[in-house]
């Protein structure tokens, strides 16, 4: 059973102040397996107008955002900055919503490493996989 649940305040606040979350149509949900994130499909996410596949960069942006939300929830008061991201594109994507589930593989005082899996029709047939490395802590922002 899938349902929209009360999102942790830190993630809500992060989504509210992130314009890219609006572009992605990002939302947070929960099912029996735990929290997951949804990209609400929009034509702006298309990379190839002929076959109407999602843009690889849009997929990467969504996976990065999901990973950031997960760390924000784990360390609500910290600032975060993405160091880098690796994305593998595993299957064809389609003009439809995309989901992502993120798992923090390692979190230290200054560094978090997050694995994110993205899918559309079937979670067991993911379309993309990402490893996200984040700098966390007071000095993580490059403002």
């Amino acid at each position: 059973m899938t349902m929209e649940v009360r999102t942790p305040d830190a993630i809500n606040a992060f989504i509210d102040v992130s314009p890219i979350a609006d572009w992605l149509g990002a939302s947070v949900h929960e099912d029996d397996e735990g929290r997951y994130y949804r990209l609400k499909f929009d034509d702006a996410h298309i990379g190839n107008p002929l076959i109407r596949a999602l843009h690889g960069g849009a997929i990467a942006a969504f996976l990065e955002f999901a990973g950031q939300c997960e760390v924000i929830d784990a360390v609500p008061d910290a600032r975060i900055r993405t160091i880098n991201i690796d994305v593998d594109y595993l299957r064809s994507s389609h003009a439809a919503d995309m989901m992502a589930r993120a798992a923090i593989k390692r979190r230290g005082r200054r560094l978090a490493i997050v694995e994110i899996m993205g899918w559309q029709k079937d979670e067991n047939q993911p379309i993309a996989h990402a490893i996200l490395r984040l700098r966390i802590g007071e000095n993580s922002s490059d403002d």
Partner: protein
Amino acid sequence: MTEPAIDPDVGARLAKARAWLSHEHSLFRSLNLKPITIKKGKAVFSMDLPDTFADAHGGVHGGLKTIILDSIFGLTVFTTLSELAPIATINLHTDYLNKAKPGMRAICAAECTAQRDDVTYVSGDLKLEETGALLATGAGVFMVGTHGLANGSVS
């Protein structure tokens, strides 16, 4: 204003793809892409960094940098093809360096570093147009000739 350096043969082959990007594609239209150099194995474009892609701290979100790199990398793959063919991103690595504010304009330069059978390797960077500050570097690997099964690329 300097005219873009576009190889006539490569430019002609890419005309259809460039038309998509600049006129028919809402994502790329919002970036206001302008060609600076297009030749075999190399593409340089300038683009806007729109407010739409801001992060929680008021800077440009890393996702936009990846979107730009993937897009220009894909175009660079096209410049190496004798005939347009579907391509797909196999994998993409992006390092995020300096921060940029929305509203600024950036330049993305990409180069094909190798080709082996139907796999093409591309690397490049994204810099602020005004200062030359390095915003991101990236490397991508693309499959050529995916016959409509392309996953999320500009192909």
